[in-house]
Structures are given as structure tokens and as C-alpha cells.
């Protein structure tokens, strides 16, 4: 076997091997276009090498011409693939040049098959045998084809294109890549052009050995593409390490981590995550199975949050309950984010969860204690009011009794006055309902229940409280002024608790004026709307506030003989729970427009509640 056969066959098989590897890579990762183009180039170079060998071994001019004609097919593939490689892998090179090269090369391929025996020779007239690597090889002798210039022009353009691309990459700062890939392509293309010009225009006697130059390009490309693979491998190692670190950190912090891949609907979860949600270590889990673990009351909210995050790439946070297979309920705080694939399509949602059952439990206990304290305050208010409330109940009962006795007499008459008796019965019914109303209001205030936030009218609250305290205020000889702003928007709150605040303020006002002369006992209740805040004010003309008005809100601050001094501090806590502000100032400063602010200074309490958001009922 000759050296020529060995070297050219080895070149072809090396290229084919490289092509096979990179085709395989591409078949796993369809987005790895560099691998596909590299594979195509390698195959084309292998074919090119085989055809070159055929030319060297040609025995007739026709055989030589045919091999040279077909060699332009792999050339086309090589040029187009390299242009693609530069554009896609190096992300450089001018588009118009790329298209011009492809167009010229395609034109050259067509001319190759249409004009003369091939692109290079109009006619190969004879073969000449020259010594090469210690043996005799064939080269063609004949009439050169001028159209050959088209092909060589395309190569020249390719040279310019690659130089320009290499400069772009260099300027971008990626000098290694510019030198190795760009530089080697430039070098081998330049030498290839030089050789083909010299050989094919029959200036020197030398066989066509272009495949060597192409092999050089393939090796440079192979180096570049393999570096990518190496980097991927290193990344994967790094990833493993960072995952291990991450797992360690999350386990130490008690975090569970999970990833939902949308395409496969699989949920991957860390050990801690599986423990928190009660999944076995090796169980495969779908999103539906995860959602089934979530408390039915929270499930739909979590489902829509996770989906929204996955679809829009938004963040989500939330606290929800999970129900474990053994029936235990756990509070989980979750946080996550959706991620898209490189094409912007939603791909996966990542999240972290932590067990907050303990915190939730203590929050619940604190809230329960607060509610108990608030209730206690209410019961204390009512015991202060018990005398006047009894009177309030007594009134309808007295009316009912008198009416019933009148009816007895009317019915005993001859003839009985039935029409009047009927009216009496109607009145009895309505008075009975009135008594029922009083009991209902009372029961509402005595009830201890969970805070219920509903839209309310501030004006109704004021009227409710006046109804409860009417009798008490009358007995105290207090003149009541009411200034309600009919345009106040609704507020959101717990009716009973807000009533309690106003009740407390009203009772305090009444007591503050006990020492005043009867003509100077004025209570003003007002509502006003200003910049999204609804203000309810209770002002008196009583003994006023201490120099530091805030002190009245401190627990156990009291001026009453039998008070605990908790009323206003409870009111403050109610206000805080409503995002409202409760504060006090002297009545004169508050500018209450009533007969009020005359001689004594008095106190005015303001409850500033945020108005309910627009559009809500």
C-alpha cells in the first residue's frame, strides 16, 4: 500500500469519526447547531479527500475530470457549513457577506455542471504523471475554465468574511476564540486558495491536496466544539457541587426545595421537601399529587399562584396548610419563581418551602388572647351601661303592658271596641320587636367571636352607638350633637369591635363631663371623609386631657375610681388591627363646630379608618 492511499484514507476516516461523534451530540441536543454544522463539514471533507485520491489515481483524463466535477459538491457543503458555523457559533460576520458567499458558491456549483467538463477545466486533454511522496500521481492538463473565477471569488469573500468575524470576536474580548477558530479558518482558507489557484491554473505541477487544509479547519473547529463539551462537563460537576452545598444549606435551614417541570409535569423535591409534604424519598410526584396534599381551603389559591408563576415567570409567596397522609396539618411558608426556556416558553417553576407551624400557632394564640381582652373590655363597657340598658328594655315592656291593659278594658265594654283593640295589638307587636332589637344588640356586644371584616358605614356605627347610649346620656343630662358627612365611603372592619371603640369613647366623654354644670355638657359625634380616610370624632367639653395626650392610651392609666384603665388601650389595639389610627387632642384645637367648645377645653378623640378600596361593595 502507498503512502498517498494511507494518508488520504486516514484523513477521510478521521473526519468521519469526528462527524459521527458530533452527530450523536446533536441528536441529544437538537439546539446544538454547532455540532450539526461541524458534522456536516467533517463528512464533506471526508468525501473531498476520497475524490482527491481518485483524481491522483486517475488513469484517463475523463476519470480525472469527473472526480474534479464531483469534488465541487463537498466544497459547496464545506463553505456553506463554515459560513453557518461562523454566524451561529461565533455569532459574528456580516449577513450580506454570508448570503453573497452562499449565492456565489451555489452559482459556481451550477456552472460546474453546465459549462465545460467542470468548473476548473473546459476540457482535460491529457494526464501528467508527477512524483509525489515517493510515487507517481496524476494531474490534469487541458484548457482552464474562466468561470473558475466565480468559485475562487466566493472563497475570497469567505476569507474576508472570516477575517471580519474574527476581528468582531477579538473586539468582543474573546481573543482565544478569535485566534484559534477565526485565525485557523483564515489561515487554511488562504493557503487553500493559494494552492488551488496555482494548481488549477496549471502554474505549478502539484496534485490537489486541499483536503489537508480543510482537515486543518476541521481540527480547529473540533477543538472549539470539544471545549464546549468540556465546559459543559465542568459545569455539570460544578452544578453537582453547588447542588450538594445547596442541599446542605437548605437542610440546615429547614428549607425544602422543589422544581416543577411543566413539559413532563414532574415535581422534583429535596429530602426536606419530601419530609414536609409527606412524600417517600423515591416516589415520582406530579403537580396534582402535590396540590392534593394542600388543605382544600388553600388549594385553589396555590394552584393558580403556581400556574401563574410558571406561565408569566412571576414570583409567588404564600402561606398555606398542608395535610399529611397521617392527618396532621402543617403550616408552610412558600416562595418561588417561574422560569422560561431560551425561547421564552414557560419551562419550570422553582420554589422553597419552610415549616412555620410553630409561628402560626403562637400567632393564633396571641390573636385569641387579644380577642379575649377585647371581649373583656366590651363586657366592662356594658356593665357600666347596665342601668340605662335596663331602662331601654323596660320602656317597650311598659308600653306593652299598658296597651294590653287598655285592650282588656276595651274588650270588656259593650259593645267592645274591636278596631282599637286591633291597633293595640299591632303596637304591641312593634314594641315587642323593639325589645328584641335591644336584646339582639346586647347579645352582639356580649358575644365573643372571631374578628369579621366586612364593609361598614361609619355613619351607621355612630347611630348604633347613640342608640345604645341614648338613655345613659339622657340621664347624665348631656346634650348630643351629631354631624355626619353623608358622602363618607364605606370602611372595612368588624362592626362589634368598632362599635366598642365608639362606645368606650362616648362613655368616657360622659364621665369626663360629670362635674360640668348641666348647661355645659356637650357631646359631639362627627364623621368626615378626607383623602381616602374616614374620620370618626367623639368630642366632649369635659375635664380634658393630660399634657401628654398619648398617656391616656397606656394600660392602667385611669381617672375613674372603679376603672381598670384598660378601655383606651384596648381601643388602640382594635384600631391597630384595623390599620386605623386612634388619637386624642383638646376639643378647642379640634375646632368642633358646635355650641360645645366654650368654657371648658375638653377632649376630642379621632378614629381614622382607611376607606374601603374602590369597586369593592
Amino acid at each position: 500500500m502507498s503512502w498517498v492511499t494511507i494518508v488520504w484514507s486516514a484523513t477521510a476516516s478521521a473526519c468521519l469519526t469526528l462527524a459521527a461523534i458530533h452527530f450523536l451530540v446533536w441528536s441529544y441536543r437538537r439546539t446544538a447547531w454547532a455540532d450539526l454544522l461541524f458534522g456536516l463539514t467533517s463528512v464533506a471533507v471526508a468525501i473531498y479527500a476520497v475524490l482527491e485520491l481518485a483524481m491522483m489515481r486517475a488513469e484517463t483524463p475523463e476519470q480525472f475530470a469527473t472526480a474534479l466535477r464531483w469534488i465541487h459538491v463537498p466544497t459547496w457543503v464545506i463553505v456553506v457549513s463554515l459560513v453557518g458555523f461562523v454566524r451561529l457559533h461565533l455569532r459574528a460576520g456580516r449577513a450580506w457577506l454570508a448570503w453573497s458567499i452562499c449565492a456565489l458558491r451555489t452559482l459556481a456549483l451550477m456552472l460546474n455542471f453546465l459549462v465545460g467538463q467542470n468548473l476548473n477545466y473546459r476540457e482535460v486533454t491529457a494526464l501528467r504523471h508527477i512524483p509525489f511522496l515517493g510515487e507517481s500521481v496524476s494531474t490534469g492538463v487541458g484548457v482552464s475554465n474562466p468561470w473558475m473565477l466565480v468559485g475562487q471569488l466566493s472563497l475570497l469573500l469567505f476569507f474576508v468574511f472570516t477575517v471580519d468575524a474574527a476581528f468582531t470576536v477579538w473586539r468582543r474580548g474573546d481573543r482565544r476564540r478569535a485566534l484559534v477558530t477565526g485565525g485557523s479558518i483564515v489561515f487554511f482558507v488562504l493557503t487553500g486558495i493559494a494552492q488551488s489557484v496555482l494548481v488549477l491554473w496549471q502554474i505549478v505541477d502539484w496534485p490537489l491536496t486541499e483536503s489537508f487544509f480543510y482537515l486543518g479547519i476541521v481540527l480547529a473547529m473540533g477543538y472549539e466544539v470539544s471545549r464546549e463539551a468540556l465546559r459543559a462537563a465542568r459545569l455539570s460537576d460544578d452544578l453537582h457541587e453547588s447542588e450538594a452545598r445547596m442541599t446542605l444549606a437548605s437542610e440546615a435551614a429547614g428549607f425544602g426545595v422543589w422544581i416543577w417541570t411543566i413539559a413532563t409535569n414532574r415535581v422534583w423535591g429535596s429530602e426536606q421537601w419530601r419530609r414536609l409534604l409527606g412524600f417517600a424519598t423515591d416516589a415520582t410526584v406530579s403537580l396534582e399529587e402535590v396540590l392534593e396534599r394542600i388543605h382544600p381551603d388553600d388549594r385553589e389559591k396555590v394552584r393558580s399562584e403556581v400556574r401563574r408563576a410558571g406561565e408569566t415567570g412571576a414570583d409567588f409567596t404564600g402561606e398555606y396548610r398542608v395535610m399529611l397522609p397521617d392527618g396532621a396539618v402543617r403550616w408552610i411558608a412558600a416562595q418561588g419563581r417561574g422560569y422560561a426556556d431560551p425561547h421564552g416558553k414557560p419551562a419550570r417553576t422553582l420554589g422553597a418551602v419552610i415549616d412555620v407551624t410553630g409561628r402560626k400557632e403562637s400567632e393564633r394564640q396571641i390573636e385569641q388572647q387579644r380577642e379575649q381582652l377585647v371581649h373583656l373590655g366590651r363586657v366592662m363597657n356594658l356593665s357600666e351601661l347596665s342601668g340605662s340598658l335596663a331602662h331601654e328594655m323596660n320602656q317597650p315592656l311598659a308600653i306593652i303592658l299598658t296597651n294590653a291593659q287598655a285592650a282588656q278594658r276595651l274588650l270588656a265594654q259593650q259593645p267592645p271596641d274591636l278596631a282599637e283593640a286591633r291597633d293595640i295589638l299591632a303596637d304591641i307587636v312593634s314594641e315587642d320587636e323593639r325589645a328584641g332589637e335591644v336584646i339582639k344588640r346586647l347579645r352582639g356586644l356580649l358575644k365573643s367571636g372571631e374578628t369579621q371584616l366586612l364593609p361598614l358605614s361609619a355613619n351607621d356605627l355612630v347611630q348604633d352607638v347613640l342608640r345604645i347610649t341614648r338613655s345613659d346620656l339622657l340621664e347624665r343630662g348631656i346634650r348630643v350633637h351629631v354631624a355626619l358627612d353623608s358622602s363618607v365611603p364605606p370602611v372595612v372592619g368588624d362592626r362589634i369591635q368598632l362599635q366598642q371603640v365608639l362606645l368606650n369613647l362616648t362613655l368616657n366623654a360622659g364621665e369626663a363631663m360629670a362635674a360640668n354644670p348641666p348647661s355645659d355638657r356637650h357631646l359631639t359625634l362627627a364623621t368626615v371623609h378626607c383623602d381616602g380616610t374616614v374620620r370618626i370624632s367623639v368630642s366632649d367639653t369635659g375635664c380634658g386631657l393630660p399634657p401628654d395626650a398619648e398617656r391616656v392610651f397606656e394600660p392602667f392609666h385611669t381617672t375613674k375610681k372603679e376603672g381598670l384603665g384598660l378601655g383606651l388601650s384596648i381601643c388602640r389595639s382594635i384600631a391597630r388591627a384595623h390599620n386605623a389610627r386612634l388619637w386624642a387632642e383638646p376639643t378647642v384645637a379640634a375646632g368642633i363646630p358646635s355650641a360645645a367648645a366654650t368654657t371648658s377645653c375638653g377632649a376630642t378623640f379621632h378614629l381614622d379608618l382607611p376607606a374601603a378600596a374602590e369597586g369593592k361593595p
Partner: protein
Amino acid sequence: MSATGGTVFLLDDEPGMLKALNRLLKAEGFTVRAFTSARAFVESYRQEVPSCLVLDVEMPELNGLELQQRLTSTENPLPVIFLTGRGDVPMSVNAMKAGAIDFLTKPVKDVDLLQAVRFALQRSAERHVVNSQVDSLRQRYSSLTPRECEVMALVVAGRLNKQIAAALGIVEHTVKVHRGRIMEKMSVNSLAELVRAAERLGRGNR
């Protein structure tokens, strides 16, 4: 004293209560004038005989006890019955001291209320009789000359004619003539009657 009438003034700020009391009293044949405010009552009040006032103590604006004081300080006081929803002791003592007929607590039994109303009306009628007698006595007394008044005062004081004559510096016969005129003008037949009339006048003038 069944459906014999008399006027009952009702004053209560609670319309329901006012209506119920009105019905009860009307069923018993009384004439009822009902008011929800003290001002309305004072403005339209005209004396009627016999009449009484049933008054709610817990009224805004005008205190029930104040009104009672105003009504009892006139020459012909209107008997007042108090109704209260609360009825504390000090208030009832004050009311009784100020001459209230009764002090009743709501809810009130019909028999108690009616008994009190009847008693009040009776008191009103009696007072009226007494007052009209005093009025006519006063009229007669005013027809006496100044000298006759002087003589009458001494007669009633138990002086003898001789003593009166000496005291006034006139003859005894003139005293006798004056006495006869006085008995005639005062339309009394005996000295005892004259003394009683003088007593009543005296009380009325006090």
C-alpha cells in the same frame, strides 16, 4: 266615679307610651290631652276643672320636677302624678315633698294608675270648690267700707261693742249699725259664721 270625666293631661316624650296611656284613660271615660314635649304643654295649657297631669320624669329639655314646681306655685295648682322608668328614691321623695299625688314606676299597673288619676281629679274638684267659696267671700269683703273693715276686724277679735266704740272714738250705736251692715254684706247670720269667713279669708290672703 265611673265615666264621669275630668281632663287628664299626659306628658311623655315616648310616643308609644303616650298612645298606650291615652287608650287606657279614654277607655275609662276621661278626656285626655297628650303632649310629647313640655314646651307644647305649657304653651297650650288652659285651666280646666277637674284636671290633673300625668308626667314622665325622664324628659329631655325640661325636667319633670322643674315643671311640677312651676305648676304648683300658681294659685290653683294642678295635681301631678309622676311616672318613671327608673324611680330612684331621692327623686320620689322630692316629688312627694313638692306635692305630687303619686309617684308610679313603669311598667305601671292599670288599677294603680287609675286610682291615682281619680284621686287627683277629686283633689282638683275639691280645691276648686274651696277656691270658689273663698273667691265669693273675698268679693263680699271688698264691698265693705274702710270703717266697716276696721269694725269687722275688732268684732272677729272678740271685742264688745263698747270696747270697739272706745277704740274707734265713736258712739256705741254707730258700731251696732256697722255690725248690721257687715253681717248683711258678708251674708252671714251669726257671729260664729263671720269668724269662720274671716278665718278663710285670712288663710287665702296669706
